[in-house]
């Protein structure tokens, strides 16, 4: 049996999906949940999309936020040339490469070393429920678990194979949850660093808590100075497509991996 208390037992925790170098949203989220949760966990992909990657890493480390690796940290820690985001479309890969090259170049070697010390998964308890934190899925760091493509039978299999009540993941950038039974299911924390393709610049954090003896997930909008982020992205000569997303909330890249339902909800 896996150690279920690896990262402790809590009543209420905050989960942060991909921060993507959006250190301004990270600051805002940490402030928002301060004194409201027992702990904050970061689910990987601290770089990509935004500017000045070290600012996010300094903040996470200074605040002592327990973290797991995403594909970005795995790639940066091992000095590989590719972020292994898992896209198949050449346009998506083109933008993924720009992000990765920028982030790799500007991430200090000390932070890269730290990334290599992070676990790929963490287990904790929230109330009575066993929760497994992972980046893509418990079986693959860059597996996309979209709401419309992660069906109940598959979730049941994941929970059984990984001996947990809840899988909490990120990687897709869109937040959602699916319960198979009270306190048993999957929660995708979405992204803290990029809007949820909903036409608003806000981003999202996730609160896992036991209420009335049953675990539930709440998605909390986080407002931050997105105009400042957009300005800094432009100053850093990051692609105008990224800047547009920070301002409008509509995704302009990473579109081809999306299933029909999620794609139809966006503008592009």
């Amino acid at each position, binding site marked *: 049996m896996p150690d279920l208390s690896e990262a402790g037992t809590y009543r209420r925790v905050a989960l942060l999906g991909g921060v993507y170098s959006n250190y301004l949203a990270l600051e805002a989220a940490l402030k928002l949940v301060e004194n409201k949760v027992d702990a904050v966990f970061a689910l990987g992909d601290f770089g990509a999309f935004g500017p000045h990657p070290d600012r996010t890493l300094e903040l996470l480390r200074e605040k002592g936020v327990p973290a797991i690796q995403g594909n970005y940290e795995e790639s940066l820690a091992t000095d590989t040339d590719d972020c292994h985001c898992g896209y198949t479309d050449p346009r998506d890969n083109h933008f993924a490469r720009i992000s990765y090259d920028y982030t790799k170049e500007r991430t200090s070697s000390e932070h890269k070393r730290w990334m290599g010390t992070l676990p790929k998964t963490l287990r904790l308890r929230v109330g009575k429920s066993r929760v497994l934190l992972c980046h893509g899925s418990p079986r693959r760091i860059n597996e996309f678990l979209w709401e419309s*493509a992660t069906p109940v039978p598959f979730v049941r299999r994941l929970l059984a194979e990984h001996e947990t009540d809840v899988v909490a993941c990120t990687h897709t950038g869109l937040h959602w949850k699916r319960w198979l039974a009270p306190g048993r299911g999957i929660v995708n924390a979405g992204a803290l660093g990029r809007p949820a393709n909903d036409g608003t610049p806000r981003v999202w954090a996730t609160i896992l808590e036991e209420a009335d003896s049953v675990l539930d997930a709440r998605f909390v909008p986080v407002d931050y100075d997105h105009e400042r982020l957009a300005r800094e992205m432009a100053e850093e000569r990051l692609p105008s497509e990224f800047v547009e997303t920070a301002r409008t909330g509509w995704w302009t890249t990473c579109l081809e991996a999306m299933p*029909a*339902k999620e794609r139809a909800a966006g503008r592009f």
Partner: protein
Amino acid sequence: MSAPAVRAYPVAPLTALDTVWFQVAGTLCNIRCAHCFISCAPDNRSFPMMTRAEVGARLREAEEFGAREYYFTGGEPFMNKEIFEILGDALALGPVSVLTNALLIKPKTAARLKSLAGASPYSLDLRVSLDGYDAATNDPIRGEGTFDRIMAGLGELAAAGHDPVVTTTEACEGVAASEGRARFLEFLRAAGLKRPRLKVLPLLRLGAETARTHAYESWETLRGRELSETEGAGLQCTTSRMVTAKGVYVCPLLIDFPGARLAATLRESLRPFELAYPACFTCHATGLSCRT
């Protein structure tokens, strides 16, 4: 002590049953494409249509194994008279993709598909095959007059609010390179698709394609090769199976090969497969996955 048996070909284990394919229309198709790797045609009855009951039996098994997604192909799936009921059954269990030539997509069909998609929490993806930017490139492959009819079908899907995926093959010159791909997507946008998606497939020198070009050469084989874990994980046969009216096959490409039929049921088909076919060489060399 005897030495362990030496295998001539590497073996792919089934690591997880994620994707289940259904050859729901058998080998029956309303057109006869020059590059079809299983030679589907109006008169190819080597694989019959599947009934809703046959599909349902395998869907129940797939659910038990925690399958992640379902693909429906043929032949032409919309020639199957029970197709809407079958798609509804599958959409109750997970996301569905249908591979079609769009010739039978009329306003009523597109609307019915839209309502099926709306009723499920899971995605319904429609994947339409098209082999060029115009009739001059498409029709020699897919048949006289098909370009206009496929574009009409795509138009109906778009009008009903679908975002179809268009599949093309490397028979469409230049499409595999990013310039060609961008050109193809632009063409689809101009044709009225709001959020066009494109899947480019390599050609498989099997079935009708062997007459159009040529068969595999003798050196195009995985014989004597050993696959690393990463190479193995990239092969679609490690995570999927193909269900037909004549049993469960290892993948959609090899149904013409009796040795690729694994069992009558999914449960019995979950065993390793020896990669002894030239198409296995293509999957390995190109990273081909029939998934979208």
